[in-house]
């Protein structure tokens, strides 16, 4: 059922409730875990007012699907989905959704966190932070490299 493993890159908002509702009917699913990342007021800078997300069209989708494949190889998943927004995203806006569904909660939790950690390390998105003082590209974080490494 590979139709249950999908990714989307879009400027439009997503609806976490609607995404989760789509998986509510699967009879062998006992657990869903949904991660949502949103624009917060601090990052490399303080007082961030917005982010701008750029991506590499084509490679982004390939990269996200490859991450879902890695997750499926590790945990018994009934479904998984990634939605990542691009473009201009003001403070408080949702950026990314990662949703996993499995028979057991432990697998759903682990796979969701794994997908998010690998996305941060491998998927070709770049963030620019906007503040009152100007804008600049966000630097890659060592902590994100470490987060992905602990799954190896």
């Amino acid at each position, binding site marked *: 059922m590979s139709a249950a493993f999908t990714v989307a890159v879009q400027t439009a908002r997503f609806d976490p409730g609607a995404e989760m509702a789509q998986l509510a009917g699967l009879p062998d699913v006992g657990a869903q875990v949904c991660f949502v990342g949103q624009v917060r007021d601090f990052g490399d800078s303080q007082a961030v007012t917005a982010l701008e997300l750029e991506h590499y069209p084509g*490679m982004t989708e390939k990269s996200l699907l490859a991450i879902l494949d890695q997750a499926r190889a590790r945990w018994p998943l009934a479904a998984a989905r990634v939605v990542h927004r691009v473009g201009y995203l003001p403070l408080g806006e949702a950026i*990314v959704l990662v949703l996993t569904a499995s028979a057991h909660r432990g697998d759903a939790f682990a796979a969701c966190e794994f997908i998010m950690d690998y996305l941060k390390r491998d*998927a070709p998105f*770049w*963030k620019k932070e906007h503040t009152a003082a100007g804008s600049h590209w966000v*630097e*890659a974080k060592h902590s994100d490299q470490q987060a992905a490494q602990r799954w190896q």
Partner: protein
Amino acid sequence: MTTLNLLYFARLRDALGCGQETLTLDGAATVASLLDALRARGGVWAEQLDAARSFRVAVNQTVAHAGQALADGDEVAIFPPVTGG
């Protein structure tokens, strides 16, 4: 002759002042020989693509290593470490 479609993203595109270009190299090419050709332009090219700098190369939308051979028509993207999510 190896004609490549080159793409640059994010901070690197801003610094190089270039988002896309077509480049033809003489004879066989690898990721490493492409980078040498770009650095040979000097200025920001030499500076931004210095081996000590942190950047990645993808060939046909898959991350590549320096020794990877390039074929005519390949899409080669050069970009900073990713920061999505």
